[in-house]
């Protein structure tokens, strides 16, 4: 049985008529140890992609030892029992790899010539099975991660904004801290025993999703995956139970002062999790407000009122209830209260007045472009297949277009009415020192 790429295409115009993009075909199977495997054939590329998603992220950390999940990601490259170096054999096989950690997941990926697929599976299975955790690797990677912390969060103007904003918005849920960790000291104090525990708890086939994409037949995929992953013992499955954030009942506000040229204003609202059916309305709401120069916040507050130098709106796409964020930087002459008032005016108007059909079509059409763009490269497709599988339904990757088209101006307005409640907002004023 060979997976095929089928194309359904209608001659629809841009104006919101039904539009079908290419379908992404895939097969899925599961090993006895619980490893879930997704296979996607793409014969247009000579490459293969191996993407492994582990169900562990910063939200799984001990609040006194934050940054562990991300530090652990770095240690996964420290070599394993049969491959003392992870990188070298992969480079010899003409491969390239990287990884990222979010508050929800840790994702590793490799691209290499399809003929060398087995090298990637050997390396990935060996480090899933028997990783080398040594004092030297830990010490060096603590240094590297602390430099990453400084480079991205401390040595950049506005770099620590999210370090301040998360604890303001979340009081109970572990989204309270950023993936990099709350502070350098947490990274510094991690011990090898902490890492051993973390590894045995989360890094096992039962807690992972493996996607193989590219010029690889389903048969080869099954043979090789069974060969390399089949004998790894099953382990615990992360049940993803976290202390849930209670409903916020009064507005929160934090003002901090930093040596930056422009004061920045960020307002966060709690929004539904990624899996919620209202996700698509939330996402389009952020586009209506602030993802392009024609969006409302930019048009009103940058172009017309000249209060802000820039402003954006976006949601965090989190697996637990996330944040809808409006964030912008004001010109030196702008008063903070005027700027805040102006943001609220735009939000209130959105709650009060209906959205035109044309504006709705505009944001849906832009989404179509993005969804098609995501299909150009096999690596993107593999990552998305892993993510949708983790969300509970791999097939949803092919229903994104219809899900966005299933929204309406009304559903977006209703979302705005639910979300933009002053008593459930958190405002961070990141004040420029005079």
């Amino acid at each position: 049985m060979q997976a095929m790429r089928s194309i359904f295409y209608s001659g629809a115009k841009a104006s919101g008529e039904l539009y079908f993009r290419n379908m992404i075909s895939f097969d899925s199977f599961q090993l006895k140890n619980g490893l879930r495997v997704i296979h996607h054939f793409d014969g247009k590329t000579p490459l293969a992609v191996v993407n492994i998603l582990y169900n562990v992220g910063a939200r799984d950390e001990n609040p006194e030892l934050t940054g562990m999940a991300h530090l652990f990601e770095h240690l996964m490259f420290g070599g394993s029992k049969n491959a003392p170096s992870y990188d070298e054999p992969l480079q010899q096989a003409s491969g390239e790899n990287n990884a990222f950690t979010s508050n929800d997941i840790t994702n590793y990926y490799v691209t290499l010539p399809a003929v060398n697929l087995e090298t990637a599976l050997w390396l990935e299975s060996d480090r899933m099975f028997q990783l080398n955790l040594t004092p030297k690797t830990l010490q060096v990677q603590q240094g590297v991660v602390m430099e990453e912390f400084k480079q991205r969060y401390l040595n950049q103007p506005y770099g620590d904004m999210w370090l301040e904003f998360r604890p303001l918005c979340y009081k109970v849920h572990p989204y309270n801290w950023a993936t990099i960790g709350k502070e350098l000291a947490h990274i510094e104090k991690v011990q090898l025993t902490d890492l051993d525990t973390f590894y045995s708890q989360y890094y096992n086939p039962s807690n992972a999703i493996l996607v193989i994409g590219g010029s690889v037949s389903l048969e080869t995929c099954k043979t090789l995956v069974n060969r390399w992953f089949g004998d790894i013992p099953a382990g615990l499955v992360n049940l993803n139970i976290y202390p849930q954030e209670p409903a916020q009942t009064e507005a929160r506000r934090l003002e901090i002062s930093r040596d930056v040229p422009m004061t920045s204003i960020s307002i966060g609202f709690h929004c539904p999790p990624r899996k919620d059916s209202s996700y698509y309305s939330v996402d389009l709401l952020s586009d209506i407000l602030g993802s392009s120069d024609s969006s409302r916040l930019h048009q009103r507050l940058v172009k017309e009122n000249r209060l802000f130098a820039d402003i954006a709106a976006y949601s965090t796409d989190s697996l637990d209830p996330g944040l809808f964020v409006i964030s912008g930087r004001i010109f030196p002459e702008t008063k903070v209260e005027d700027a805040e008032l102006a943001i609220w005016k735009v939000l209130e108007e959105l709650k009060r007045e209906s959205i035109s059909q044309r504006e709705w079509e505009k944001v849906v059409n832009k989404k179509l472009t993005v969804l098609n763009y995501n299909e150009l490269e096999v690596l993107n497709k593999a990552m998305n297949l892993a993510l949708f599988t983790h969300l509970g339904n791999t097939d949803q990757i092919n229903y994104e277009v219809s899900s966005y088209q299933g929204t309406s101006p009304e559903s977006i307005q209703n979302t705005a009415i639910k979300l933009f409640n002053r008593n459930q907002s958190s405002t961070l004023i990141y004040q420029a020192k005079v």
Partner: protein
Amino acid sequence: MINRSIAPATRLPETLPPFSFDNITLKNGVHVFFSKEHEELVRVSFFFRCGSLYSTEKGLVSALSKLLLSGTDLFSAYEIQEKLDFYGAYVDIESGFLFVSLHVFCIQNNVDPILSFLHEVLENVRIPNDEFELYRRKSIETLKVNEQKTAFLSKRIFNSTYFGLEHPYGRYMTQEDYLKLSVDQVQGYYENRLLPSLDFILVNSPINTESINLFGNNTRETTNLPETLSLLKKEVFSIHHQHNDAVQASIYAGMPAPTRKHPDYPAWSVLITLFGGYFGSRLMKNIREDKGYTYGIGSNTLHLHDSSLLIIRSDVKNEAKLDCMHEIMHEMTRLFTETIREEELTTVKNYMLGNIQRSFDGSLARVDRYKTIMEYELKESYFHNYVRQVKNITKEELYSIASIYLNTNNLNVVIVGDFGKN
């Protein structure tokens, strides 16, 4: 149970696919190159040969690229952006040394209305005063933010010292310069230069549209590069720039390198990849993976229009900046004093061959490679020859290339950090 101690056998990547482009010539002689393979997501890229090398005034070209869609006699900036958004278009305008390039991303169905509209806008740009004022204010604020970044400063100091403040590669805008810039200058550059300089168009898919022909209606003129651009030979410099309270220091160092067209280039590129061009490079192994001084360090070849430079850069722990510089020099010296192990050479070559294959994967990637061919006036067979040459390079060649080009006395260095604390 599988014996995990035996690594699976590996093979080198297949040969690169040949470029597969069709082209048509518009009425005015502008070539449009299409990739033959159908893609639902289309990117149309317009290359205008009026980048900053063609401008004697600094700041004009980047201002124009930011203001190109800011208004016409008929449409406001909002109306232009709204209409492009309505058709789902993403437009990205870049200002480079050679080209101003405009890339538009959209789905097949919308190519036609988008291109006709873009053509109408590009023919009738009239930059509104208030849009220009907003651009000026935003640029000044952005500049203030950038001037707090050590990495930004290190690069700017390097370029202005190496190329000189008069050269387009070295000059930069200050707050005062933004105040002096006028909308008439930018409008003038648009009127005299933009449309006549349209050089070629690249598309990642066949597109079924008449609207591309509209771009054949404009007159085309060739402009030569101003002749004052020869680079002055300067003394090697080492600059330590104080930046109070920096928790990290930025290093930016460089020296002359062979250009892509030079016969030494393939060997040189292997040498520089081994030195600092990939995760397993000597700089990464020493400074990140052994000492933990940095999140990343790298070396690469920067290709300018008529010359190339070796660039080494890193953001490092402030206290380790001088030690890091010392290690960079040490690693460079090793290249021309020690022979490279065969195994290390094989690893870097295999990695590079895979990387070139990846850089040809997907229609957008192939269009980007084709753009390199156009920009540096290379032969279509360039990358294919390059792959063959990389495969055959020996450690003796690398040693001799290192001896010719690398000399730690010729390395120009800028470090921006807090020198009060070490």
